[in-house]
Protein backbone atom coordinates (compact mmCIF):
# COMPACT_ATOMS: atom_id res chain seq x y z
CA UNK A 1 0.00 0.00 0.00
CA UNK A 2 2.79 2.35 0.95
CA UNK A 3 4.74 1.78 -2.25
CA UNK A 4 1.53 2.11 -4.22
CA UNK A 5 0.85 5.52 -2.69
CA UNK A 6 4.45 6.56 -3.22
CA UNK A 7 4.22 5.49 -6.85
CA UNK A 8 1.05 7.54 -7.25
CA UNK A 9 2.70 10.60 -5.74
CA UNK A 10 5.81 10.28 -7.91
CA UNK A 11 3.67 9.82 -11.01
CA UNK A 12 1.54 12.80 -10.07
CA UNK A 13 4.58 14.96 -9.45
CA UNK A 14 6.06 14.01 -12.83
CA UNK A 15 2.83 14.95 -14.60
CA UNK A 16 2.76 18.21 -12.63
CA UNK A 17 6.35 19.04 -13.58
CA UNK A 18 5.64 18.25 -17.23
CA UNK A 19 2.68 20.64 -17.17
CA UNK A 20 4.68 23.44 -15.57
CA UNK A 21 7.82 22.96 -17.63
CA UNK A 22 6.58 21.91 -21.07
CA UNK A 23 2.88 22.70 -21.46
CA UNK A 24 3.32 26.17 -19.92
CA UNK A 25 5.13 27.17 -23.10
CA UNK A 26 1.87 26.80 -24.99
CA UNK A 27 -0.23 28.86 -22.57
CA UNK A 28 -2.14 31.87 -23.85
CA UNK A 29 -0.43 35.16 -23.09
CA UNK A 30 -3.64 37.18 -23.41
CA UNK A 31 -4.77 39.11 -20.32
CA UNK A 32 -6.89 37.03 -17.96
CA UNK A 33 -10.55 37.67 -17.19
CA UNK A 34 -9.99 40.22 -14.43
CA UNK A 35 -7.29 42.07 -16.35
CA UNK A 36 -9.54 42.21 -19.41
CA UNK A 37 -12.46 43.60 -17.41
CA UNK A 38 -10.18 46.14 -15.71
CA UNK A 39 -8.95 47.27 -19.09
CA UNK A 40 -12.43 47.47 -20.64
CA UNK A 41 -13.92 49.26 -17.64
CA UNK A 42 -11.02 51.66 -17.30
CA UNK A 43 -9.52 50.75 -13.93
CA UNK A 44 -6.47 48.82 -15.12
CA UNK A 45 -4.29 51.89 -14.59
CA UNK A 46 -5.07 51.83 -10.85
CA UNK A 47 -2.84 48.74 -10.61
CA UNK A 48 0.57 49.32 -9.06
CA UNK A 49 3.69 47.33 -9.79
CA UNK A 50 4.29 44.31 -7.61
CA UNK A 51 6.94 44.74 -4.96
CA UNK A 52 8.89 41.88 -6.55
CA UNK A 53 8.39 43.07 -10.12
CA UNK A 54 12.16 43.16 -10.55
CA UNK A 55 12.67 39.96 -8.60
CA UNK A 56 14.57 37.02 -10.05
CA UNK A 57 11.36 35.10 -10.84
CA UNK A 58 9.06 37.96 -11.77
CA UNK A 59 6.29 37.15 -14.23
CA UNK A 60 7.21 33.46 -14.40
CA UNK A 61 10.64 33.97 -15.89
CA UNK A 62 14.08 33.26 -14.50
CA UNK A 63 16.43 36.19 -14.49
CA UNK A 64 19.37 35.63 -16.80
CA UNK A 65 17.71 32.93 -18.90
CA UNK A 66 17.02 34.61 -22.22
CA UNK A 67 15.21 31.85 -24.06
CA UNK A 68 11.59 32.67 -23.30
CA UNK A 69 10.23 29.14 -23.25
CA UNK A 70 13.15 27.83 -21.23
CA UNK A 71 12.82 30.70 -18.79
CA UNK A 72 9.10 30.08 -18.26
CA UNK A 73 9.60 26.33 -17.98
CA UNK A 74 12.38 26.73 -15.46
CA UNK A 75 10.31 29.14 -13.38
CA UNK A 76 7.50 26.59 -13.48
CA UNK A 77 9.82 23.86 -12.22
CA UNK A 78 10.99 26.09 -9.37
CA UNK A 79 7.41 27.03 -8.50
CA UNK A 80 6.20 23.42 -8.49
CA UNK A 81 9.08 22.24 -6.31
CA UNK A 82 8.71 25.15 -3.87
CA UNK A 83 4.93 24.66 -3.65
CA UNK A 84 5.31 20.90 -3.19
CA UNK A 85 7.94 21.43 -0.52
CA UNK A 86 5.94 24.04 1.38
CA UNK A 87 2.78 21.93 1.08
CA UNK A 88 4.47 18.73 2.26
CA UNK A 89 6.04 20.53 5.22
CA UNK A 90 2.79 22.23 6.19
CA UNK A 91 0.64 19.12 6.02
CA UNK A 92 3.25 16.95 7.73
CA UNK A 93 3.35 19.55 10.50
CA UNK A 94 -0.43 19.50 10.81
CA UNK A 95 -0.35 15.70 11.01
CA UNK A 96 2.25 15.79 13.74
CA UNK A 97 0.24 18.35 15.73
CA UNK A 98 -2.69 16.01 15.50
CA UNK A 99 -0.88 12.89 16.62
CA UNK A 100 0.53 14.95 19.47
CA UNK A 101 -2.96 15.77 20.73
CA UNK A 102 -4.77 12.61 19.73
CA UNK A 103 -6.20 12.22 23.22
CA UNK A 104 -8.36 15.31 23.10
CA UNK A 105 -9.22 15.03 19.44
CA UNK A 106 -12.12 12.78 20.36
CA UNK A 107 -11.16 10.66 17.41
CA UNK A 108 -9.46 7.49 18.59
CA UNK A 109 -9.32 5.97 15.13
CA UNK A 110 -7.32 8.93 13.95
CA UNK A 111 -4.41 6.93 12.67
CA UNK A 112 -6.72 4.67 10.74
CA UNK A 113 -4.18 3.56 8.24
CA UNK A 114 -1.21 4.09 10.46
CA UNK A 115 -1.05 0.49 11.55
CA UNK A 116 0.16 -0.70 8.21
CA UNK A 117 1.84 2.33 6.79
CA UNK A 118 3.41 4.46 9.45
CA UNK A 119 7.16 4.35 9.39
CA UNK A 120 8.74 2.66 12.40
Amino acid at each position, binding site marked *: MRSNLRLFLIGGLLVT*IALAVVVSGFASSSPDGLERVAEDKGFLETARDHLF*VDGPLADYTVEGVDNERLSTGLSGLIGVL*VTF*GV*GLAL*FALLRSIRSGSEGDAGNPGASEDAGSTRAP
Partner: protein
Amino acid sequence: MHIPDGFINASTSLAAGAAAAGGVGVSLRRAAQTLQERQAPLAGLVAAYIFAVQMLNFPVAAGTSGHLLGGVLAAVLVGPWAGCLCVAVVLLVQSLFADGGLTALGLNITNMAVVGVFGGWAIFRLLRRALPATKTSVVVASGIAAGISVVLAASAFVVEYAIGGAGGAPVGTVLAAMVGVHTLIGIGEGVITALTVGVVLGVRPDLVYGAQDLQAPLVLGARPERAAGEVS
Protein backbone atom coordinates in the same frame (compact mmCIF):
# COMPACT_ATOMS: atom_id res chain seq x y z
CA MET B 1 -8.24 36.49 -11.25
CA HIS B 2 -5.19 37.56 -9.24
CA ILE B 3 -5.85 41.09 -7.99
CA PRO B 4 -2.77 43.32 -8.26
CA ASP B 5 -1.86 46.01 -5.76
CA GLY B 6 -3.92 49.17 -6.18
CA PHE B 7 -7.24 47.88 -7.52
CA ILE B 8 -8.81 47.87 -4.06
CA ASN B 9 -8.12 50.45 -1.35
CA ALA B 10 -6.09 49.77 1.76
CA SER B 11 -8.89 49.49 4.31
CA THR B 12 -10.85 47.00 2.21
CA SER B 13 -7.68 45.01 1.56
CA LEU B 14 -7.00 44.98 5.28
CA ALA B 15 -10.52 43.75 6.06
CA ALA B 16 -10.12 41.02 3.44
CA GLY B 17 -6.80 40.18 5.03
CA ALA B 18 -8.59 39.61 8.33
CA ALA B 19 -11.22 37.46 6.61
CA ALA B 20 -8.50 35.46 4.87
CA ALA B 21 -6.58 34.99 8.11
CA GLY B 22 -9.77 33.77 9.76
CA GLY B 23 -10.51 31.30 6.98
CA VAL B 24 -6.98 29.99 6.89
CA GLY B 25 -6.83 29.83 10.68
CA VAL B 26 -9.97 27.72 10.95
CA SER B 27 -8.74 25.55 8.08
CA LEU B 28 -5.42 24.96 9.84
CA ARG B 29 -7.24 23.81 12.97
CA ARG B 30 -9.74 21.62 11.18
CA ALA B 31 -7.18 20.14 8.82
CA ALA B 32 -4.98 19.28 11.79
CA GLN B 33 -7.96 17.46 13.35
CA THR B 34 -9.17 15.62 10.27
CA LEU B 35 -6.39 15.13 7.74
CA GLN B 36 -5.66 11.46 7.23
CA GLU B 37 -2.09 10.26 7.12
CA ARG B 38 -2.16 9.18 3.50
CA GLN B 39 -3.77 12.45 2.46
CA ALA B 40 -1.02 14.69 3.83
CA PRO B 41 1.45 14.05 0.98
CA LEU B 42 -1.42 14.11 -1.50
CA ALA B 43 -2.33 17.60 -0.29
CA GLY B 44 1.23 18.72 -1.05
CA LEU B 45 0.91 17.28 -4.53
CA VAL B 46 -2.47 18.97 -5.03
CA ALA B 47 -0.93 22.35 -4.17
CA ALA B 48 1.93 21.80 -6.62
CA TYR B 49 -0.50 20.63 -9.32
CA ILE B 50 -2.64 23.74 -8.88
CA PHE B 51 0.45 25.92 -9.13
CA ALA B 52 1.39 24.21 -12.40
CA VAL B 53 -2.07 24.31 -13.96
CA GLN B 54 -2.55 27.96 -12.97
CA MET B 55 0.32 28.68 -15.38
CA LEU B 56 -1.69 27.18 -18.24
CA ASN B 57 -3.83 30.07 -19.43
CA PHE B 58 -6.36 28.96 -22.01
CA PRO B 59 -8.06 31.36 -24.44
CA VAL B 60 -11.72 32.04 -23.66
CA ALA B 61 -12.63 34.91 -25.98
CA ALA B 62 -10.90 37.26 -28.35
CA GLY B 63 -7.82 38.48 -26.54
CA THR B 64 -8.84 37.09 -23.15
CA SER B 65 -7.59 34.06 -21.27
CA GLY B 66 -8.34 32.24 -18.07
CA HIS B 67 -6.74 29.61 -15.90
CA LEU B 68 -7.70 27.08 -13.27
CA LEU B 69 -8.34 28.39 -9.77
CA GLY B 70 -8.37 24.89 -8.32
CA GLY B 71 -10.55 25.44 -5.26
CA VAL B 72 -13.07 22.69 -5.92
CA LEU B 73 -10.39 20.38 -7.27
CA ALA B 74 -8.49 20.68 -4.00
CA ALA B 75 -11.62 20.37 -1.85
CA VAL B 76 -12.83 17.23 -3.62
CA LEU B 77 -9.40 15.56 -3.48
CA VAL B 78 -8.28 16.41 0.07
CA GLY B 79 -11.31 18.01 1.72
CA PRO B 80 -12.26 21.68 2.06
CA TRP B 81 -9.99 22.45 5.04
CA ALA B 82 -6.80 21.13 3.51
CA GLY B 83 -8.07 22.37 0.15
CA CYS B 84 -8.26 25.95 1.41
CA LEU B 85 -4.69 25.62 2.65
CA CYS B 86 -3.52 24.22 -0.70
CA VAL B 87 -4.85 27.24 -2.59
CA ALA B 88 -3.50 29.65 0.04
CA VAL B 89 -0.04 28.07 -0.27
CA VAL B 90 -0.19 28.46 -4.05
CA LEU B 91 -1.14 32.14 -3.75
CA LEU B 92 1.66 32.70 -1.26
CA VAL B 93 4.28 31.06 -3.47
CA GLN B 94 3.02 33.02 -6.48
CA SER B 95 4.15 36.20 -4.73
CA LEU B 96 7.71 35.11 -5.60
CA PHE B 97 6.62 35.34 -9.23
CA ALA B 98 5.12 38.83 -8.72
CA ASP B 99 1.66 37.38 -9.44
CA GLY B 100 -1.13 38.91 -7.36
CA GLY B 101 -0.29 41.98 -5.27
CA LEU B 102 1.25 41.59 -1.83
CA THR B 103 -1.25 44.04 -0.33
CA ALA B 104 -3.94 42.15 -2.25
CA LEU B 105 -2.93 38.75 -0.85
CA GLY B 106 -5.79 38.85 1.65
CA LEU B 107 -8.25 39.70 -1.13
CA ASN B 108 -6.94 36.92 -3.34
CA ILE B 109 -6.96 34.33 -0.54
CA THR B 110 -10.50 35.39 0.39
CA ASN B 111 -11.74 35.07 -3.19
CA MET B 112 -9.95 31.94 -4.31
CA ALA B 113 -9.04 29.99 -1.16
CA VAL B 114 -12.09 30.80 0.97
CA VAL B 115 -15.04 31.73 -1.29
CA GLY B 116 -13.86 29.50 -4.16
CA VAL B 117 -13.13 26.49 -1.96
CA PHE B 118 -15.98 26.57 0.55
CA GLY B 119 -18.59 27.97 -1.85
CA GLY B 120 -17.64 25.39 -4.44
CA TRP B 121 -17.55 22.62 -1.84
CA ALA B 122 -21.08 23.50 -0.69
CA ILE B 123 -22.33 23.24 -4.27
CA PHE B 124 -20.48 19.95 -4.71
CA ARG B 125 -22.20 18.57 -1.60
CA LEU B 126 -25.63 19.69 -2.84
CA LEU B 127 -25.05 18.09 -6.22
CA ARG B 128 -23.78 14.86 -4.67
CA ARG B 129 -26.97 14.67 -2.63
CA ALA B 130 -29.12 15.16 -5.72
CA LEU B 131 -27.20 12.69 -7.90
CA PRO B 132 -26.91 8.90 -7.55
CA ALA B 133 -24.02 7.62 -5.44
CA THR B 134 -21.63 6.74 -8.24
CA LYS B 135 -18.14 7.71 -9.36
CA THR B 136 -19.64 9.40 -12.41
CA SER B 137 -21.70 11.62 -10.14
CA VAL B 138 -18.57 12.65 -8.26
CA VAL B 139 -16.90 13.65 -11.53
CA VAL B 140 -19.96 15.53 -12.79
CA ALA B 141 -20.55 17.27 -9.47
CA SER B 142 -16.87 18.29 -9.31
CA GLY B 143 -17.00 19.81 -12.76
CA ILE B 144 -20.21 21.77 -12.24
CA ALA B 145 -19.25 22.97 -8.77
CA ALA B 146 -15.82 24.02 -10.06
CA GLY B 147 -17.38 26.05 -12.85
CA ILE B 148 -19.75 27.83 -10.49
CA SER B 149 -16.96 28.43 -7.96
CA VAL B 150 -15.15 30.61 -10.51
CA VAL B 151 -18.23 32.81 -10.86
CA LEU B 152 -18.49 32.97 -7.05
CA ALA B 153 -14.86 34.06 -6.75
CA ALA B 154 -15.37 36.65 -9.50
CA SER B 155 -18.46 37.94 -7.67
CA ALA B 156 -16.46 38.22 -4.46
CA PHE B 157 -14.09 40.51 -6.33
CA VAL B 158 -17.03 42.67 -7.41
CA VAL B 159 -18.14 42.98 -3.78
CA GLU B 160 -14.64 44.14 -2.86
CA TYR B 161 -14.63 46.49 -5.82
CA ALA B 162 -17.99 47.92 -4.77
CA ILE B 163 -16.67 48.56 -1.25
CA GLY B 164 -13.21 49.83 -2.00
CA GLY B 165 -12.51 49.86 -5.72
CA ALA B 166 -10.02 52.51 -6.80
CA GLY B 167 -11.46 52.83 -10.29
CA GLY B 168 -14.62 54.76 -11.06
CA ALA B 169 -16.44 52.21 -13.19
CA PRO B 170 -20.06 51.56 -12.16
CA VAL B 171 -20.40 48.38 -10.09
CA GLY B 172 -23.22 47.03 -12.26
CA THR B 173 -21.16 47.00 -15.45
CA VAL B 174 -18.16 45.52 -13.63
CA LEU B 175 -20.41 42.78 -12.24
CA ALA B 176 -21.87 41.97 -15.65
CA ALA B 177 -18.43 41.88 -17.27
CA MET B 178 -16.84 39.82 -14.50
CA VAL B 179 -19.64 37.26 -14.39
CA GLY B 180 -19.75 37.06 -18.18
CA VAL B 181 -16.08 36.33 -18.77
CA HIS B 182 -15.76 34.10 -15.70
CA THR B 183 -18.67 31.97 -16.81
CA LEU B 184 -16.54 31.13 -19.85
CA ILE B 185 -13.46 30.56 -17.70
CA GLY B 186 -15.63 28.44 -15.41
CA ILE B 187 -16.27 26.03 -18.26
CA GLY B 188 -12.52 25.45 -18.53
CA GLU B 189 -12.29 25.12 -14.75
CA GLY B 190 -15.06 22.53 -14.80
CA VAL B 191 -13.46 20.48 -17.57
CA ILE B 192 -9.98 20.47 -15.97
CA THR B 193 -11.41 19.67 -12.54
CA ALA B 194 -13.64 16.85 -13.82
CA LEU B 195 -10.78 15.34 -15.85
CA THR B 196 -8.37 15.43 -12.92
CA VAL B 197 -10.87 14.07 -10.40
CA GLY B 198 -11.80 11.38 -12.93
CA VAL B 199 -8.20 10.26 -13.33
CA VAL B 200 -7.55 10.11 -9.57
CA LEU B 201 -10.86 8.25 -9.06
CA GLY B 202 -9.74 5.77 -11.70
CA VAL B 203 -6.30 5.18 -10.21
CA ARG B 204 -6.76 5.63 -6.46
CA PRO B 205 -10.44 6.14 -5.59
CA ASP B 206 -9.62 5.70 -1.90
CA LEU B 207 -7.66 8.98 -1.98
CA VAL B 208 -10.59 11.11 -3.13
CA TYR B 209 -12.09 12.84 -0.08
CA GLY B 210 -15.28 13.77 -1.93
CA ALA B 211 -15.92 10.12 -2.83
CA GLN B 212 -15.20 8.51 0.52
CA ASP B 213 -18.83 7.51 0.92
CA LEU B 214 -18.47 5.31 -2.16
CA GLN B 215 -15.76 3.14 -0.63
CA ALA B 216 -17.30 -0.26 -0.05
CA PRO B 217 -17.05 -1.55 3.51
CA LEU B 218 -13.74 -3.21 3.13
CA VAL B 219 -11.09 -5.43 4.59
CA LEU B 220 -10.93 -6.69 8.14
CA GLY B 221 -14.47 -5.71 8.98
CA ALA B 222 -13.54 -2.06 9.10
CA ARG B 223 -16.25 0.37 8.08
CA PRO B 224 -15.53 3.21 5.68
CA GLU B 225 -15.79 5.65 8.53
CA ARG B 226 -13.16 3.80 10.43
CA ALA B 227 -12.55 6.87 12.51
CA ALA B 228 -15.74 6.63 14.50
CA GLY B 229 -15.02 5.20 17.87
CA GLU B 230 -13.14 2.02 17.03
CA VAL B 231 -10.70 1.99 19.82
CA SER B 232 -9.19 -1.39 19.12
